[in-house]
């Protein structure tokens, strides 16, 4: 399941709603992304997230579907905000649930790594020196690239 919204979200409430009444779920993993107040050595006053309505939902749904193909998930959720955000505000939530923890941990990491390089969002940072579009990070590409191999070929810890 995916959602793109301007409003804030409550990670606890989202996890509770996703797992309510589900006795098949053995573990839940979540990632919450939060706006930092520093970009390098520049102080950030605010951040505006632009996105491409329509394509954003399509790409997030495809990434979510891919996670569900690769791992035996009982439930998954991606919530991504857009619009103006302040330091300390939540930006993104990824929740994965599965009968065993390995799938939930791996799928959560996969979802945040892939959405960072595929979902059409762009951050505009406002600092005292003016507004700047954030540049794509080589680190993010490297983090996404490690998931290029099919999941079946990756070493899996015993459950």
């Amino acid at each position: 399941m995916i959602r793109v919204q301007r409003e804030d979200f409550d990670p606890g409430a989202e996890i509770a709603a996703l797992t309510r009444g589900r006795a098949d779920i053995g573990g839940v993993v979540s990632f919450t992304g939060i706006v930092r107040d520093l970009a390098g050595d520049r102080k950030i006053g605010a951040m505006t997230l632009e996105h491409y309505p329509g394509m954003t939902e399509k790409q997030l749904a495809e990434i979510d579907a891919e996670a569900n193909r690769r791992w035996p998930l009982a439930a998954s959720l991606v919530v991504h905000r857009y619009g103006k955000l302040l330091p300390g505000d939540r930006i993104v939530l990824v929740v994965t649930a599965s009968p065993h923890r390995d799938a939930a941990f791996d799928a959560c990491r996969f979802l945040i790594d892939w959405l960072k390089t595929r979902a059409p969002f762009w951050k505009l940072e406002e600092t005292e020196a003016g507004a700047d579009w954030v540049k794509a990070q080589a680190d993010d590409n490297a983090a996404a690239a490690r998931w290029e191999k099919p999941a079946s070929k990756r070493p899996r810890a015993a459950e």
Partner: protein
Amino acid sequence: MKVLYFAWLRTRVGHAEDAIDLPKNVTDVRGLIEVLRAKGPNYATALKDLNTVRVAVNHDYVKLDHSLKPTDEVALFPPVTGG
């Protein structure tokens, strides 16, 4: 054909959207970008370095040799920075 711009591509072009009548001899994304570059220095600057430009057609990522139809929605934007 609808062409959309996002993030710094939008600010450099100066607007968010164009309606383009594709010339008959233009059949792919690379050709469309040449047509756009010829529209003015703002376009030429925004589309100067294609290493920093990503292309989507009808909400899917495509490469420069992707064939275009008049009903396509094309979007040009920088590498994404969400999450």
